[in-house]
C-alpha cells in the first residue's frame, strides 16, 4: 500500500509545481490541481478499503525515521482513512466547483487550495501537538486566502475578523503546547497521554492541567462554540459556497478529530466540559438558525450546531464506549455530506433569501437533492443520522442522562423545523424576483456534478451505515426492507404516466397483503387490511389525475411502506423506523396541496415532536438493552414504567390528534389534494391508534403519582370527542368540517381504548373500520364536489343533488353511518360503546361523550344540506358529476358500509375471540344473527330487514297515493306569496348554527392554537435575542472568545 504520507507530499509537490508554471499556462495548472486532489482521494480511499476489509492494519509513519518523541509520527487507522477521504473528496469536488473562480484567480489560488486540503488531512493524520498547531495555522492562512475567492461585498471584513480571532487562538494554543511539553516532556499525543498519569507532584499536574486547558480551549474554539463563533458565521455567509463547503465539511471534521485526539490526553475529567460546550452550541446554534432568512448564514448556524452535537457525542465517550465512532461518525458524515451538498446547491442560485430557493423546483433533481440533505441533517430514516441518533438516545437513557437527552431531541426538533420550513418555501412559495431572468444555473455541469455526487454519497452512506448497524448492533438495515425498496423504486419510475404508476402501486399493495396475510393475528389483520387493501382502494381515486404526477407515488408508497412495516415490526427500532417513514411520506403527500405549506409544516413538527417522544420512551424503557422487543414493554422496571407510558402515549396521540395536539390536522387534511385527504385522514390516523393499542396491550394500566393514566386518557379522549365535534359544527369549509369530525371520531376510538375492557377495545376497532370507510368516502365525495364547483366553501354550493346524485348517495350513506343511526354500521359502534361503558368502573367521562354524540348530527346535516340540498346557484347549473374514478371508490365504500352493517361478525368475530386473551370477561356471543353481551342484545340483520320492510311499505303506500306528483323547480316555494329574489339570497347556509354558537360557542375558543403560537413566538424571540450577540465587529468577536475562555475556565473549576 502506498504510504499515507504521500497525501501531504503530493499536495505540497503540486503546490510548488504550480508555483513554477508560467502565468499563461494557467489552463494547465487547473488539471494539475485536480489530478493532485484526485490522487490524494484515491490514496485515502484505497487505505479505507484495505483497513475496512481487514487486509491492512493501522500503520504509524515516522517522518524522521525515528520513533517519537523525537520525531513527528502520522497514523493511518480506520477513522483517519474515513476522514481524510471525506476531506480530500470535498476538496476535489469543491475545486471542480470553483473552476471559473480558480481560473480567474490563477495558479496562486489553486496552490492555496491544495495547501488547505493538505493541512486539513495533516490535522487528521498527525499525532504530534506542535505539528497539529502548524497545520492549524496553515488552515488559517489558507482560509484567509480562499475567502477572497468569493465576490461577496463583505468577504474582506469576514476574512479579517477570522484572522483576528485566529491570532488570539494561536496565541493560547502555543502557550498551551509549550507548557504541556514543559510538563510532560514530549510533544507526541500518545506519549503525552502516557505521561499524564505519571505526574506525581501537585505542582506539575496543576501546571499541566492549566496548559492542557489552554490547548483544549483553543482547539474547541476551532469548532466555533456558541458564544464565540460570530467570526465563523461571517465566513459562511461571505465566502464562496464551494469554500464554505470545505470550511464546514473539511475544517469542522479535522478540528473535531483533533479535539478527539486531545481528549485522549485529557482523559475523563474533560469529557463533561466537551459535552457542555457541545450541547450548548447545538441547542443555541439551532435556536439562532430559526429566525435566519439568509440561506448561507442559516447553513452556517446549522453546521455550527451539528459540530456542537458531535462534540457533545465525543464528550459522552465514557458511556458510549465503542459505539462512539459509529454514532459520531454517522452524525459527522451526514453533516459533512449534507452541508457540502447544500452549500454547493446554494451556489446554483443567485438570490440569497430562503424564498429565492423556490426557483429550484423547475427540475425534480435539485428538489430531490435538497430532500436528501434535509433528511440526512434531521436524522430521518434510512440515513446514517437516524441510526446514530437512535444509539445516542439509547445510551443516554441507559445511563440516566435525561437532561442531555431532552436537549438533544429539542435541538433536533428545531433543526427539523427550520429545514422543513425551508423545504416548504422551496415547493410552495413564489420567488420574489422577476420570472424571466433565469436565476438557476443548471447548464454548468461542473457545478451540478458535485451536488449529484453528494446525493449519491448520501444514499451510499445510508446503505453503509445500515450494514454497519446490522453487523455491529444487530439493527435491521432499513434500505434492505422490501416495502421501503418498493417505495424508493417509484423514484426511478417517476417518468412513467400516472396511471401506470397507480396500477403498479395498487398491485404492489394487494400483492404484499396476499403474500403476508397469514402471519397477522386478528388485531393486526384489521390494520393490515385497512393499510394495504384500504390503501389500494383509496388509490383507485388517483386514476382521475392525468399526466405524470411527479413526486406523488414515491411519497404515497413511502407512507404505505411505513405503515406496513409498522404492523410487521416487533422490535422498538423497526417500529420507530416505520413510524418515521410513514410520517415523512405523509408529510410529502400533504405538502402537495396548493395552500398546504404552513399546515404541512405544523404537521411535520407535531409528528416529529411526537416521534422524538416515542424514541425517548423506547430508550428509557430499554434501559440500555441493545435489542428491545415491543412485547417487553410489559416488563419495564417500576419507576420508569409510568413515564414510558406517558411519553409513548403522548407520542401516539400526536398522530391521532387528541385535543391539545390537534391543531395540525384541520389544515393538513383540508388543504391536501382530493385523493390525498382520504388516505391521510382515513388510513394515517389509524397508525396512531395501532401504536396506542400496542402500548396499552403491553403496559396495561399505569399509575403516576397516584393518578390512573388510563383515566386521564379517558378524559382526554372524551374532551377530544366533544371539542372535535363542536368545532366541526362551526366550519364553513367542507373539508375542514370533515377534518374536525375526524378529531371527534378519533376521540371516540381513543375513549374505547382507554376504557381498558373487552368491549371498549371492540368499540375502538369498530370505529377504526367504520371511520376508515366513511371518512375516506366523505372526503372523496367532498373532494369531487370541490373539484367540480371550484370551491370548498359550503355556502357557495347548494342544490347539487340533481347534478351530482352519486356523490349525494355516498354522502347520505356516510352521514347515516357517522351519526350512528340504526340500520347502518355506526349504530354497531354506539351499541358496543354503551355496553362497554356499562362494564367500565368510571362514570363522569361518559357524560361528556353523551353530549358529543348528538353534536355529530349537527355538522353532518350541515355538510349534506349546504352542498346538496337547498337552492342551486346560477354558476353551478352546468356542473357535471364527479369524475368516474372518484365516484367508483365511493360506491365501493357504500357497499362495504352496508355489508359491514348487515354482517358485522365478518370483521369483528375473530377479533372478539382474539381479545379474550387480554380481557377475558365481557366478551360478546355471536349466536346466529344475534349478538348478545352481558347487558343487551343486537340483531343487525333483523334491524336492517325490519327497517327495510317498513320503509318499503310506507314508500309503496306513498307512491300509490301520490302517483301524480308534479315535479317543480327551485323557486316554486311558498315565499309568502312573493317571488324569491335570487338563489343566493334564498339559500340559508352561512353561519348555519348561529344560535348554537351563541349557546356553546365559548367552548371553541382557539386556546390550544394560541398556546402553540406563543411557544413558537417565544422560540423566535429567543433566537432574535441571541442574534443580537453578533454585532458584526471583529474586535467584539475576539473579546467574546476571551470571555468564553474565562467563563469555561471558571466553570471547569480548575
Amino acid at each position: 500500500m502506498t504510504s499515507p504520507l504521500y497525501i501531504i507530499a503530493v499536495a505540497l509537490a503540486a503546490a510548488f509545481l504550480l508555483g513554477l508554471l508560467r502565468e499563461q499556462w494557467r489552463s494547465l495548472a487547473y488539471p494539475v490541481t485536480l489530478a493532485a486532489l484526485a490522487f490524494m482521494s484515491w490514496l485515502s480511499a484505497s487505505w479505507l478499503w484495505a483497513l475496512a476489509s481487514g487486509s491492512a492494519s493501522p500503520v504509524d509513519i515516522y517522518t524522521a525515521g525515528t520513533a517519537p518523541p523525537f520525531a513527528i509520527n502520522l497514523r493511518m487507522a480506520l477513522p483517519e482513512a474515513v476522514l481524510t477521504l471525506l476531506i480530500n473528496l470535498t476538496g476535489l469536488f469543491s475545486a471542480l466547483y470553483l473552476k471559473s473562480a480558480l481560473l480567474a484567480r490563477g495558479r496562486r489560488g489553486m496552490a492555496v487550495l491544495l495547501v488547505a486540503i493538505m493541512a486539513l488531512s495533516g490535522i487528521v493524520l498527525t499525532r504530534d501537538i506542535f505539528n497539529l498547531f502548524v497545520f492549524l495555522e496553515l488552515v488559517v492562512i489558507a482560509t484567509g486566502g480562499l475567502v477572497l475567492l468569493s465576490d461577496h461585498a463583505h468577504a474582506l471584513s469576514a476574512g479579517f475578523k477570522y484572522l483576528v480571532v485566529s491570532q488570539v487562538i494561536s496565541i493560547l494554543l502555543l502557550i498551551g503546547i509549550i507548557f504541556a511539553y514543559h510538563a510532560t516532556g514530549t510533544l507526541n499525543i500518545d506519549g503525552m497521554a502516557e505521561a499524564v498519569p505519571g505526574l506525581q507532584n501537585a505542582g506539575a499536574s496543576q501546571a499541566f492541567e492549566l496548559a492542557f486547558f489552554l490547548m483544549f480551549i483553543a482547539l474547541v474554539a476551532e469548532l466555533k462554540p456558541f458564544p464565540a463563533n460570530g467570526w465563523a458565521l461571517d465566513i459562511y455567509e461571505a465566502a464562496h459556497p464551494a469554500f464554505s463547503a470545505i470550511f464546514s465539511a473539511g475544517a469542522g471534521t479535522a478540528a473535531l478529530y483533533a479535539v478527539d485526539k486531545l481528549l485522549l490526553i485529557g482523559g475523563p475529567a474533560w469529557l463533561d466540559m466537551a459535552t457542555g460546550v457541545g450541547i450548548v452550541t447545538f441547542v443555541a446554534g439551532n435556536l439562532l438558525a430559526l429566525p435566519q432568512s439568509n440561506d448561507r448564514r442559516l447553513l452556517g448556524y446549522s453546521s455550527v450546531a451539528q459540530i456542537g452535537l458531535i462534540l457533545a457525542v465525543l464528550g459522552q465517550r465514557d458511556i458510549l464506549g465503542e459505539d462512539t465512532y459509529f454514532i459520531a461518525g454517522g452524525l459527522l458524515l451526514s453533516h459533512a455530506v449534507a452541508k457540502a451538498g447544500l452549500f454547493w446547491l446554494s451556489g446554483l442560485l443567485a438570490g440569497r433569501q430562503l424564498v429565492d430557493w423556490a426557483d429550484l423546483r423547475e427540475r425534480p433533481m435539485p428538489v430531490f437533492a435538497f430532500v436528501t440533505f434535509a433528511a440526512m441533517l434531521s436524522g430521518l430514516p434510512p440515513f446514517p443520522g437516524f441510526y446514530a441518533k437512535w444509539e445516542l438516545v439509547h445510551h443516554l437513557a441507559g445511563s440516566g442522562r435525561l437532561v442531555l437527552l431532552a436537549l438533544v431531541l429539542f435541538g433536533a426538533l428545531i433543526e427539523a423545523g427550520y429545514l422543513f420550513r425551508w423545504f416548504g418555501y422551496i415547493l410552495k412559495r413564489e420567488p420574489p424576483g422577476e420570472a424571466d431572468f433565469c436565476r438557476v444555473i443548471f447548464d454548468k455541469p461542473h457545478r451540478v456534478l458535485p451536488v449529484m455526487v453528494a446525493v449519491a454519497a448520501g444514499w451510499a452512506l445510508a446503505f453503509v451505515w445500515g450494514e454497519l448497524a446490522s453487523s455491529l448492533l444487530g439493527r435491521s438495515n432499513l434500505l434492505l426492507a422490501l416495502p421501503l425498496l418498493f417505495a424508493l423504486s417509484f423514484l426511478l419510475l417517476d417518468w412513467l404516466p400516472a396511471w401506470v404508476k397507480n396500477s403498479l402501486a395498487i398491485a404492489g399493495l394487494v400483492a404484499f397483503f396476499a403474500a403476508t396475510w397469514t402471519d397477522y393475528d386478528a388485531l393486526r389483520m384489521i390494520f393490515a387490511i385497512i393499510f394495504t387493501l384500504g390503501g389500494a382502494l383509496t388509490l383507485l381515486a388517483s386514476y382521475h389525475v392525468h399526466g405524470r404526477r411527479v413526486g406523488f407515488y414515491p411519497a404515497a408508497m413511502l407512507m404505505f411502506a411505513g405503515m406496513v412495516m409498522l404492523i410487521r415490526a416487533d422490535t422498538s427500532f423497526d417500529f420507530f423506523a416505520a413510524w418515521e417513514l410513514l410520517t415523512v411520506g405523509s408529510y410529502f403527500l400533504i405538502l402537495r396541496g396548493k395552500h398546504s405549506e404552513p399546515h404541512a409544516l405544523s404537521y411535520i413538527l407535531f409528528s416529529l415532536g411526537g416521534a422524538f417522544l416515542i424514541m425517548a420512551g423506547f430508550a428509557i424503557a430499554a434501559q440500555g438493552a441493545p435489542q428491545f422487543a415491543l412485547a417487553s414493554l410489559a416488563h419495564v422496571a417500576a419507576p420508569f414504567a409510568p413515564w414510558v407510558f406517558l411519553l409513548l402515549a403522548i407520542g401516539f396521540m400526536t398522530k391521532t390528534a387528541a385535543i391539545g395536539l390537534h391543531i395540525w390536522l384541520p389544515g393538513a387534511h383540508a388543504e391536501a389534494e382530493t385523493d390525498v385527504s382520504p388516505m391521510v385522514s382515513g388510513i394515517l390516523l389509524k397508525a396512531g391508534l395501532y401504536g396506542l393499542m400496542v402500548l396499552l396491550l403491553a403496559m396495561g394500566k399505569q399509575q403516576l403519582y397516584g393518578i390512573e393514566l388510563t383515566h386521564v386518557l379517558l378524559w382526554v379522549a372524551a374532551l377530544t370527542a366533544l371539542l372535535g365535534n363542536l368545532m366541526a359544527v362551526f366550519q364553513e369549509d367542507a373539508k375542514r368540517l370533515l377534518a374536525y369530525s375526524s378529531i371527534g371520531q378519533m376521540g371516540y376510538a381513543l375513549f374505547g381504548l382507554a376504557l381498558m375492557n373487552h368491549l371498549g377495545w371492540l368499540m375502538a376497532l369498530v370505529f377504526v373500520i367504520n371511520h376508515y370507510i366513511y371518512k375516506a368516502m366523505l372526503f372523496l365525495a367532498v373532494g369531487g364536489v370541490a373539484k367540480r364547483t371550484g370551491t370548498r366553501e359550503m355556502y357557495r354550493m347548494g342544490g347539487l343533488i340533481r347534478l351530482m346524485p352519486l356523490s349525494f348517495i355516498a354522502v347520505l350513506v356516510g352521514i347515516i353511518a357517522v351519526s350512528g343511526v340504526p340500520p347502518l354500521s355506526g349504530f354497531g359502534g354506539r351499541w358496543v360503546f354503551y355496553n362497554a361503558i356499562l362494564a367500565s368502573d368510571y362514570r363522569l367521562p361518559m357524560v361528556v361523550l353523551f353530549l358529543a354524540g348528538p353534536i355529530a348530527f349537527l355538522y353532518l346535516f350541515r355538510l349534506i344540506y349546504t352542498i346538496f340540498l337547498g337552492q342551486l346557484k346560477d354558476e353551478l347549473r352546468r356542473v357535471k358529476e364527479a369524475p368516474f374514478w372518484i365516484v367508483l371508490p365511493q360506491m365501493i365504500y357504500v357497499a362495504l358500509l352496508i355489508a359491514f352493517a348487515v354482517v358485522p361478525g365478518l370483521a369483528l368475530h375473530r377479533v372478539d375471540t382474539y381479545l379474550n386473551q387480554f380481557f377475558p370477561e365481557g366478551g360478546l356471543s355471536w349466536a346466529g344473527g344475534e349478538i348478545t353481551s352481558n347487558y343487551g342484545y343486537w340483531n343487525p340483520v333483523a334491524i336492517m330487514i325490519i327497517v327495510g320492510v317498513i320503509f318499503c311499505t310506507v314508500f309503496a303506500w306513498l307512491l300509490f297515493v301520490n302517483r301524480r306528483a308534479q315535479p317543480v323547480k327551485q323557486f316554486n316555494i311558498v315565499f309568502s306569496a312573493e317571488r324569491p329574489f335570487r338563489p343566493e339570497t334564498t339559500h340559508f347556509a352561512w353561519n348555519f348554527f348561529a344560535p348554537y354558537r351563541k349557546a356553546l360557542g365559548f367552548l371553541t375558543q382557539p386556546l390550544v392554537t394560541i398556546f402553540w403560537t406563543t411557544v413558537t413566538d417565544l422560540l423566535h424571540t429567543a433566537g432574535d435575542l441571541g442574534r443580537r450577540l453578533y454585532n458584526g465587529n471583529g474586535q467584539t468577536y475576539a473579546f467574546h472568545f476571551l470571555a468564553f475562555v474565562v467563563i469555561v475556565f471558571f466553570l471547569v473549576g480548575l
Partner: protein
Amino acid sequence: MQFEWIKIPYALLTLFIVVNYGMLLGAFIQKIGARVGRRRGVPIWQNYADLVKNFGLRTSITHGVMFYLGPVFRLTGGIGLLLFVPTIYGSEMFSNLSFAGDLILALYFVFFGTLGMALGAGESGHPHAAIGISRGLSQVTAAELPLALAVFSVALQYQTLSITDIVSAQQGGVLHWTLFTNPLAVAAAMLSFLGSMMRPPFDVVLAPQEIPIGPPTEYHSSYLALMQTNRAIFPVAKIVVYMNLFFGGAASWPVFFLKVFLIYMVSVFVGVAFPRFRVEQSIRWFLVWAVPLGILSILLA
C-alpha cells in the same frame, strides 16, 4: 328471543291500536286544552277527518327524490320506534319486534326519523325549512343529553339494557318503579321528555308564529298525511319507552292507555304554562337544570 312469522300480524295489531289511540289521544288533549280556554275544541274524530282529507287531496308537487322520501323516513322512524319496543309487558302478542335490538336501538332510532325529515325539508329549498332544522337539531342535542344520562343510570341500576328485563325488574307494586328507586334519573328524563315533545317551552321549531311551521313548510297532501300519522304514533312510541323505563311498563292495554295519557299530560301542563324559549335559552336551560340531575343520578346509581 327468536323471530316467528306470527310476530308480524301481532305487530300490525299493536300498530293499529296505537295509531287509533294516538289520533284520539291527540284530539282529546286538544279538547282538554280548549276546555281550559272555555272553548268546545275540535271533535274527537278531527284527526281522522284531517288525515282522510290530506290523503284525499288530488294534486301534490315534489321538489326531488329526497323531498319525496322525507315523510317516508319520518313515518318509518315512528313505526320502527313503536315496534322495536315491547308495549305490553308479559304478553307474547304485544312484545312486537323487540327481539331485534334493546334499549340503545330505541334510543338511536329516534334520530332516524329526525334525520330523514331534515333531509326531506332541506331538499324543499325553502329557507324557513333550513332555519327550522338548524334550530331543531341544535335543541335536540341538548335535549337528548339528560335522557342519555338517565338511561345510562337506569341501565347501571338494573345492570341490563333489555327493556323487558327492566320492566320485569319494576313489577310488584308502585314503589318498585324507577320513579321511586331512581327519582333523579326520572326527573332528568322527564325534563328531556319536555324538550322532545315540541310543546311550547321548546317548540320554537314548529311554532306557526315563529317561522311558518319550520321544516314541514313545503309538505302537503299525502306527504303531510304521512307526517300526521307519524305525529299520532311517534309521541306514543316515545312515551312507551319512558313508561317501560321509568313507570313500570303496562301489563294490559287499559293500564297502557292510562299511563301514556298521564305522561303525555305532563308535557301539556308544562306547555300551557310557559312561554317559548329561544334555542340558546333552551340549550342553556337543559345544560343548567337537566344535565346536573342526570349526572347526579349516574353518580348515585
